[in-house]
């Protein structure tokens, strides 16, 4: 087994009493002293600071204009990258030739280049994929000398604005460069919790200092991967490798909204990405199964792998599930055959050999609070 890597914040995590677990090749904090439940609720009420430095930061630098990089990236994603204005960010998917999902990512137009953030577990493959796919005129440059922090929650803006003037003017999915005491910060107003908040790329040597400056504020607490998972589950967001992977298509995963019209049939730049034929076909015909929210009728959590039934017929399975602290109840998401995917449909879940009722529900479970 390869040695686990550490982020610039490792020593800070242990000094804060974090419980460290292996995650995507890194030693990461799963929880701190508050515990998962209180960390989750703290983020919803105040501001939570997450170390996401394990994620892959990559610059796509064109020889010419940023439009060249956008058009090159469009050969790998079913997303309108060319139409992404300077200073804006959007969600994207790397697809494969069969129409499955290789990874999900964020792509930002930073004026003279694109900046992408990919999942930690996929980053080596993603970088190789982009190097192979984007070719000569676009240079794929992994950013290995920067940490990445996420500050999330209703008090995130007030906290960050104390250090960095002007972030309050950003809207959801804006990206911009700021100075913090001589350090160049690449900030986006986005996150993985359903809350308003920011993701902050910071030079490696200043990551600890920025984290400490934020944690010194009354409204900011350090939050681990455990609460990050329950927060994103309530927000209805996919976790790559669980809710989406190579065996799930964008339409099955209910991610059609990520495929803009211009890349669909009849659009100016229709197709031209891996798996375009099956994906564009499925956009018109629908898929035979669909990712949905599931609300267990009882109190027992229905976790990943739980099989779902309608009578004697197996109709799908749970891909993420657990207790939702803000809703004070268990929630799950998973795939069901399309004829059972309508909101309000009753299904049965097999938990420890017993069939327990659950109801198909809309995602997200909890409305997002973005500053649009």
């Amino acid at each position, binding site marked *: 087994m390869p040695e686990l890597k550490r982020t610039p914040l490792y020593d800070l995590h242990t000094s804060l009493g974090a419980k460290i677990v292996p995650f995507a090749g890194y030693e990461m904090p799963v*929880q701190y002293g508050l515990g*998962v*439940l209180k960390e989750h609720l703290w983020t919803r009420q105040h501001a939570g600071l997450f170390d996401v430095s394990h994620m892959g930061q990559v610059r796509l630098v064109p020889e010419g204009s940023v439009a060249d990089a956008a058009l090159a990236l469009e050969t790998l994603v079913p997303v309108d990258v060319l139409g992404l204005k300077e200073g804006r960010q959007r969600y994207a998917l790397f697809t494969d030739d069969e129409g499955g999902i290789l990874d999900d990512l964020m792509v930002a137009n930073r004026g003279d280049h694109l900046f992408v953030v990919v999942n930690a577990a996929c980053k080596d493959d993603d970088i190789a994929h982009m190097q192979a796919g984007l070719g000569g005129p676009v240079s794929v440059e992994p950013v290995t000398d920067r940490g990445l922090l996420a500050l999330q929650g209703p008090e995130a803006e007030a906290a960050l604005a104390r250090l960095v003037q002007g972030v309050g003017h950003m809207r959801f999915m804006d990206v911009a460069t700021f100075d913090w005491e001589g350090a160049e910060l690449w900030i986006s107003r986005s996150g993985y919790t359903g809350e308003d908040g920011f993701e902050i790329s910071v030079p490696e040597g200043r990551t600890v200092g920025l984290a400490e400056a934020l944690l010194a504020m009354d409204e900011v607490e350090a939050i681990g991967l*455990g609460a990050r998972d329950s927060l994103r589950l309530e927000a209805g967001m996919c976790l790559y490798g669980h809710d989406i992977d190579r065996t799930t298509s964008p339409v099955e995963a209910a991610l059609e909204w990520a495929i803009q019209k211009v890349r669909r049939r009849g659009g100016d730049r229709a197709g031209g990405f891996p798996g375009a034929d099956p994906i564009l076909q499925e956009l018109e015909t629908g898929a035979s199964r669909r990712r949905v929210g599931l609300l267990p009728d009882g*109190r*027992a*959590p229905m*976790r990943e792998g739980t099989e779902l039934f309608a009578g004697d017929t197996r109709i799908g399975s749970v891909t993420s599930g*657990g*207790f939702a602290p803000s809703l004070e109840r268990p929630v799950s998401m998973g795939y069901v055959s399309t004829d059972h995917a309508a909101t309000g449909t009753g299904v049965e879940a097999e938990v420890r050999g017993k069939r327990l009722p659950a109801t198909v529900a809309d995602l997200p479970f909890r409305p997002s609070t973005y500053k649009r």
Partner: protein
Amino acid sequence: MKYTEDHEWLRVDGDVVVVGITEHAAEQLGDVVFIELPETETQVAKGDDIVVIESVKAASDIAAPVDGEIVEVNVDLADNPGLVNEDPLGAAWFFKMKVTDMEQLDTFMSEDEYKDMIG
């Protein structure tokens, strides 16, 4: 109070034992969010998984520490599973069982022995 290697505590009260989990176990589990208890009047054998306890992290089972019959379960836990984190040695007892053979209790640890085990 006696302790098992599975981090259960047992308090003997005549021919009945009260069973819960230790503070150490509750800490390891994290915030408990769901508990499924056995039916009363069930005959159980030592080692049978009779309680399901789910925390924010994962599901775990709790086994019957000895042979016997479940005579009472703590119904408060179903409504308030967080009691396990708040008061594991007191209010968050799980079940009471009538023990078939009290000698089965002899192998369990004292508090000092248990503390040595968890270090």
